[in-house]
């Protein structure tokens, strides 16, 4: 090509070195797509030297190469899984290929999410992150609670309402974060770090209401799972509905099935139940007093009855003695009663059981 003197001024294509051209392309790409989210199916997934992950994202008509550092992988990947990546497009200097430098990714769609969840579960289980022995209970008397949630969500509002209904005097610190999407795991981790650094709360609670599998995918993030497990403060996770079980649930010290359940676990003593208990206590005292008032006459009556019994027994005994002394009883035993003056010539009256006999005394002698 000839380089005429006036060519540059009339829109002649620039002449660049290969390196400059690639650099220029990258500048254009950077201006157009400082970051881009692309959704596609994983193909040709490969980890090189244990450090670099290479794969392709494809759909029905197109394919693009992807690259990321293996340590940044937050969910297990397999060929065929559909994922959403947050990436920066870049033309490689050495190869001239266009590829996506992937910063984050999340499985998309029920099948992929399920597959990724299974793979990650298997991995973390093997590492002991779900061990029950590592889980800490919530403190008995919680006073300061750190909450990580989206403050505009229905789940958060339910959580705060139930806490207010059940308890009073709690100091609740809240950090507002995304609870779905690619940025959610990082934001939740940052909030967790802040609460751990402040070290003021008795426990950290992560709450989010229900949603689709995609919406809840942030809670299946490997890095987040490790951050929850590493938290110095005990962590309670209450995400989704009862049927949803995320990796965050499995690594948490305490799992609640919903945000409402999380609030209940934090406040085992409902103040309304406490108030009912007070009424019950007072009623119990009243009953004890009433019972004791009835007991006093009973005691007196028992004493009287005892006395009467004793008196009755004495009477019966006296009656028995008297009965034995009755002259008729003596006559019945064959004896006779002799009455009259004991002098010779006098007549004595002899009474037996059946007869009364008169007898004259002829003589009286000494025994």
């Amino acid at each position, binding site marked *: 090509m000839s380089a005429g003197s006036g060519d540059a001024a009339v829109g002649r294509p620039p002449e660049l070195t290969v390196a400059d051209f690639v650099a220029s392309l990258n500048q254009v790409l950077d201006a157009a797509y400082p970051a881009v989210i692309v959704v596609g199916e994983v193909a040709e997934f490969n980890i090189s030297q244990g450090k670099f992950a290479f794969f392709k994202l494809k759909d029905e008509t197109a394919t693009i190469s992807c690259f990321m550092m293996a340590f940044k992988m937050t969910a297990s990947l397999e060929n065929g899984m559909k994922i959403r990546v947050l990436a920066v497009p870049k033309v490689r200097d050495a190869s001239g290929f266009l590829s996506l430098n992937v910063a984050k990714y999340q499985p998309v769609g029920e099948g992929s999410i399920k597959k990724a969840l299974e793979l990650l579960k298997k991995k973390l289980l093997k590492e002991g992150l779900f061990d029950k022995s590592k889980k800490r209970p919530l403190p008995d008397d919680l006073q300061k609670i750190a909450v990580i949630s989206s403050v505009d969500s229905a789940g958060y509002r339910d959580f*705060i309402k139930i806490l207010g209904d059940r308890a*009073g*005097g709690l100091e609740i610190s*809240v950090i507002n974060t995304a609870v779905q999407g690619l940025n959610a795991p990082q934001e939740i981790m940052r*909030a967790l770090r802040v609460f751990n650094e402040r070290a003021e709360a008795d426990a950290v609670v992560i709450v989010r209401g229900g949603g689709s599998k995609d919406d809840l995918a942030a809670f299946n993030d490997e890095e987040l799972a490790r951050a929850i497990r590493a938290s110095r403060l005990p962590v309670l996770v209450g995400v989704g509905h009862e049927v949803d079980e995320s990796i965050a649930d499995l690594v948490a010290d305490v799992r609640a099935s919903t945000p409402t359940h999380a609030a209940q676990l934090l406040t085992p003593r409902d103040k309304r139940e406490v108030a009912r208990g*007070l009424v019950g206590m007072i009623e119990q005292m009243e009953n004890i007093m009433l019972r004791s008032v009835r007991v006093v006459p009973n005691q007196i009556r028992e004493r009287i009855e005892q006395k009467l019994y004793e008196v009755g027994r004495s009477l019966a005994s006296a009656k028995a003695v008297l009965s034995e002394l009755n002259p008729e009883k003596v006559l019945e035993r064959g004896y006779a009663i002799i009455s009259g003056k004991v002098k010779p010539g006098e007549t004595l009256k002899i009474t037996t059981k059946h007869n009364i006999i008169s007898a004259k005394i002829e003589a009286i002698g000494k025994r």
Partner: protein
Amino acid sequence: MKQEREKIAEKTKRLNELMAWFDGDEFALEEAVEKYAEATKLAAEIERSLEGLKNKVVRIDLAEEEE
């Protein structure tokens, strides 16, 4: 708030002591009336305190905290 919670805890403790006395062998009707009056007063105070006790919610700005 902490003070109020401690007061409630103290009053609840005293109320439980009174209940234990009512349930125990030392119970005597002559003393019960006085203790019952104390218990009802405590119960009413605890109930009022519980009703009045509200949670305090403070928002923390993540970006500010990290600066």
